């Protein structure tokens, strides 16, 4: 059973449907017991970092996520959910994250050329580097995923498993052991996205 964590941030309908589409058993919940009992955890999120991390802390879900991840349970953060896994974010101030991935969240405006539009919206090609991570085992180099973001994972070189080119090489996905994160939206990336979710479902505890 996969649990999609519901903490009042973002729209979980498409994400739930995409797991169902690949035949996965999925439940949406914000209850600690449900999250502890699940085999795998998905942390979604849309919106502002500060608001989201405050919501996780207020409900105590931050501790549950960290404990379960440290036990070795596969955890996938998506978009803002990925950013929350980092040490901290510089989105409107400085905010501490869950520190499951080493690095910081910074504005893409800091690194991309001026003529590039912000947010980075649309389909962009994924590049996997020399060694393709198992999360992408069903994908080909250059397959496209759908991005919508203005901030990105920086100083996380050791965890980067995919990048996308947008005037600069931006972090598209990260992994550290059993903790994974995608900056793009697999649930909006057509077949490519479903293949990533399928690979995640096949990761073992």
């Amino acid at each position, binding site marked *: 059973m996969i649990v999609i964590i519901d903490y009042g941030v973002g729209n979980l309908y498409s994400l739930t449907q995409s797991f169902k589409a690949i035949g996965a058993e999925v439940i949406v919940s914000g209850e600690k017991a449900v999250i502890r009992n699940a085999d795998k955890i998905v942390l979604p999120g849309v919106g502002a970092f500060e608001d989201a991390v405050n919501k996780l802390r207020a409900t105590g879900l931050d501790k549950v996520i960290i404990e379960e991840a440290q036990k070795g349970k596969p955890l996938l953060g998506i978009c803002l959910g990925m950013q929350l896994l980092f040490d901290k974010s510089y989105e409107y101030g400085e905010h501490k994250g869950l520190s499951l991935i080493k690095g910081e969240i910074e504005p893409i405006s800091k690194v991309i050329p001026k003529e590039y539009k912000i947010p980075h*919206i649309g389909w962009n090609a994924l590049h996997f580097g020399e060694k393709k991570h198992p999360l992408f085992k069903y994908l080909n180099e250059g397959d496209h995923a759908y991005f919508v973001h203005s901030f990105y994972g920086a100083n996380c070189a050791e965890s980067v498993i995919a990048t996308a080119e947008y005037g600069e090489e931006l972090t598209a996905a990260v992994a550290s052991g059993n903790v994974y994160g995608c900056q793009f939206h697999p649930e909006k990336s057509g077949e490519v996205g479903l293949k990533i979710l399928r690979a995640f479902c096949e990761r073992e505890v």
Partner: protein
Amino acid sequence: MITKRIIPCLDVKNGRVVKGVNFQGLSDVSSPIELGKYYSENGADELVFYDITASAEGRALFTDILKEVASTIFIPLTVGGGINSLDDFDRVLKCGADKVSVNSGAIRNPDLIYQAAKRYGDQCVVLSADVKRVGGEFRVFAKGGREDTGMEALSWIKRGVDNGAGEIVLNSIDTDGVKKGFDLEMLDAVCKIVSVPVIASGGAGKAEDFITLFNTLPKVDAGLAASIFHFGEVNIMELKKQLAREGIPMRI
């Protein structure tokens, strides 16, 4: 590299696609669910559903259909038509829409864009503008292009972006339906004043019109069309392959 997007737009009235489309293999040509699936499996980078329903019952039907579309299609979905309040945003987002397009609703209530962007984020709010040349200036039209608002379009669009619109759909009434190509002059004027993605709409008649669009105006992010896709005059996958051969970045 980020790709240019090709977006088919479907008008839905009382739960059925207006001017149903006769594609091979489609059993029900006016089913939004079947058509949405067809387009998403055949190269569309995004779908726009436009609700032109007049009645409340029709609108309830539309939200049911949205849910079903969103449970079979895993590409971005934009919904427009009859969006006048935050409740309308909420209603369609809960059904699986990713972006909500506002037009007349934002003209009636200029605060709508700001409020929606604040609650759901800029990326969620699309300002759709129907624009026509009147007396030497670009003028915003409301109610599906029937009513001249008297507002100058460029300042209206600029204000919309300042208030939080994350994308602009620019529909030129002057070129709409003429099928002689997009309104490059109008698009260029808009691209010069905003820094958010601009989606060109109105005037596409053939594949070459998209090539001209992206080659002439590299700042345009996407091309939107309805009838030429619906009637099979332009096949989206073929179009994208042709654009890619021209060196325009595409998701093939």
